[in-house]
């Protein structure tokens, strides 16, 4: 299988803090990879370095074999990599529908066509389909800022899917989402994975969610990769139990 993403020797130091300290892993096309580990072990920082939000101290990130270290987030996004953040990141003053249109508009046409073309960039139907999938149709016209935390969390995930990405990095998508919606979110991820061959990397503390969703799991501790393997293998790994699951 082709390697969509390859991270090698990634380091990110904040002064004396070695947040990420030599992390290497790869993501294969079409898999759902879990990235787990205790609080503060460097998972989010790893995402930020992969996606250009932070410049890594050292190391290399490859997308389809091509080095993309240091590329700007907007360029990476237009190459088909999207993400969600750990903290909520929606546009509170825009409606739910407008949030989703925004998430797709920069992937179509040119600056000029976005100025002179239709105001929804031809995306209203696609946005409404996405809204329907997340069972938010009654909220389509509401300002995102007025939604509940869990609803905003779902909108956040929906935005990451809007442009039909091939690789999505999700930072704790399940936090604050109720059980039914969590099931829906899992279905959505699996459906996109099956139907569009989209690849996912998911950071999550909810073990049931990770174990039932992911095909492979990478465990981090103190800025390094501690273990890697199928969910059930990882679950039994004594080092992992000691560092993380045992707590």
């Amino acid at each position, binding site marked *: 299988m082709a390697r969509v993403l390859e991270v090698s020797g990634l380091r990110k130091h904040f002064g004396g803090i070695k947040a990420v300290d030599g992390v290497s892993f790869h993501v294969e096309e079409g898999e759902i990879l879990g990235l787990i580990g205790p609080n503060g072990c460097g998972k989010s920082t790893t995402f930020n370095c992969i*996606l250009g*939000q932070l410049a890594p101290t050292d190391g290399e990130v490859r997308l389809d074999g091509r080095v993309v270290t240091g590329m*700007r*987030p*907007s360029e990476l*996004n*237009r190459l088909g990599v*999207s*993400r969600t*953040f750990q903290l909520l*990141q*929606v*546009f*509170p*003053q*825009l409606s739910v529908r*407008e949030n989703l*249109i*925004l*998430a797709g*508009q*920069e*992937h179509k046409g040119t*600056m000029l066509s*976005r*100025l*002179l*073309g239709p*105001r929804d*960039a031809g995306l209203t139907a696609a946005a409404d389909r996405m809204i329907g999938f997340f069972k938010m149709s009654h909220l389509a016209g509401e300002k995102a800022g007025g939604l509940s935390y869990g609803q905003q969390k779902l909108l956040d995930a929906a*935005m990451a899917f*809007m*442009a039909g990405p091939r690789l999505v990095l999700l930072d704790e998508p399940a936090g604050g989402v109720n059980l039914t919606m969590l099931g829906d979110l899992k279905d959505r991820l699996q459906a996109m994975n099956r139907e569009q061959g989209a690849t996912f990397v998911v950071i999550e503390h909810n073990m049931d969610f990770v174990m039932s969703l992911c095909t492979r799991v990478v465990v981090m501790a103190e800025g390094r990769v501690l273990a890697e393997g199928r969910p059930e293998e990882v679950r039994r790994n004594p080092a992992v139990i000691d560092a993380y699951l045992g707590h």
Partner: protein
Amino acid sequence: MTRSLAAWLAGIAGAAALVLLPLALNRYGIYILSLWAVMTIAAIGLNLTLGYAGQISLAQGAFVGIGAYAVAILTTSGFPFVVGLAAALAVSFAVGWLLGYPALRVQHHYLAFVTLAFSTLAYLVFRNEEWLTKGIYGIVGVPRPSVLGIATAKPLPFYYLCLGALAVVSFAVWWLVRSPWGRAFVALRENPVRALSLGVDTRRYTLMAFAIGSALGGVAGAFYAPLVEFVDPTPFTLALSLNLLMMVIVGGAGFFLGPFLGALIAVLLPEWLRFMEGWYLIAYAVFVMVLLVISPTGILGILDRHLTARRTRAASQARAAAKPVLNSEAA
């Protein structure tokens, strides 16, 4: 539908009033109304940069100056007004674009300081570069243009010229803020990091927000010069930038109609409060402070909150009516 119909009717009534009102006004009244149209154009530009894209600028007055000097210099050298207008637009667009670069690195009050420094710099250029601007003596006798063979030297036709410019600018900006660009500007204001991760080229949109907003400052200046027929550095101090900032904030930053209202208050209030003489500035300051305590989002912010509250009430009533069973359970 009824809401947009009401908006259309209000728009048509407003436009009709702007066309008919000056017929009942004296020379000075028409001058004030022309000044309002010109200042509104500049405030619309600042509203784009500040209200929509969230980039603070204390330099809009400097761009009005750049536009005014471009037209004054070129038309007094024999070029037609349109050449001056095009130059005002182009120069202020380019300089605005350059002024956007600091905004890529610094935000908020740091950006305010950078633009403030630029404002001061521009004033010094207007005052000291005598070979170009005639310094403190100013450029006298800026001509009013003829449009399609109609001379606009008299107050009334010149007012209609300003009003026409305002109409064109309003339409262009209305189109812009409703386009995907407008959405990207708002995203830039609300959450640049998220916008970037969704493929929004925040650098380019930031520079565009500055360039277009500044260009409209230049356009305002291009009409200001023939309006007052005399251009010297004094109107283009930091005070003008602050005044334009007030117009945007008082009217309601980020609302399309905010600058129209803000400029109306800023231009008319001194006239209405003339009887207060020196006290008028204090009255204006108190008004602004009270307004911002009541509504930090300006006058249109109050209206917006009122309308939103009414819509939410209507929506929840509709939901309650649709689900009587659920309601009785809850009760």
